[in-house]
């Protein structure tokens, strides 16, 4: 499974694994949205520690979740971004919409 979900105290953590592209983002999106719509967490932590590569589909994955969580005023936080993933996040401006944590876990 390309995403592992855990929920505690209103925070849903999604540990993503593997390369994120248009093909793999779909499974990740479906798993996250399924749990999110049931639980309506106030925060989604997307952990990219085990993601060695992503293209703009990863940015789309983040933007889509920011939009979804906006429906119940939830917030999306990113963590575990490598240097190259950080660059994609910065290039896209998505960092202005989602919080970025330095530490993973």
């Amino acid at each position, binding site marked *: 499974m390309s995403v592992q979900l855990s929920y505690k105290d209103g925070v849903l953590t999604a540990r993503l694994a593997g390369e994120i*592209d*248009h093909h793999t983002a779909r499974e990740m*999106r479906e798993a996250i949205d399924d749990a999110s719509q049931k639980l309506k967490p106030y925060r989604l932590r997307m952990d990219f520690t085990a993601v060695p590569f992503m293209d703009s589909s990863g*940015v789309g994955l983040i933007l889509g979740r920011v939009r979804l969580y906006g429906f119940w005023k939830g917030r999306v936080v990113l963590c575990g971004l490598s240097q190259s993933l950080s660059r994609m996040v910065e*290039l896209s401006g998505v960092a202005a919409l989602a919080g970025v944590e330095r530490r993973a876990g």
Partner: protein
Amino acid sequence: MKAVNQAQFTFPSYSVNESFGRAAVTAFLAQIDPTVADLTEIKTAVSEAVTNAIVHGYRDQIGTVYITVKLFENGKAVVRVRDRGCGIADVEKAMEPLYTTGGEERAGLGFSVMQSFCDSVRVTSQVGRGTTVTLTKHFEPKP
């Protein structure tokens, strides 16, 4: 200028082949011993071009994606990603940042990423005939 080495490959436009497309290009480019940063950049740019061919070019059909990679003596690499899909009516508009016809999950950043990560991006397209994206990048020798 004549290419010193080149590779060509094709695959059907199943989205599962997106990873193969970018990985095959980076595997071929490994022979010039690029930096990790340069290799990640071209890998990302190729991923965007291949995804465009699959998601947009062949939006209503499965077709063939054609990739050629050419290496030149001065460290220049040229990657051409071609589809015979629906084509783009307004290339300039398609290349605008955030513009997408791909729905809510597409960020509309494909061409912006290609332009940021390559030295040049050339797009030729004909409606009903398909689209060719040509990415050019210079690879500096490692220090």
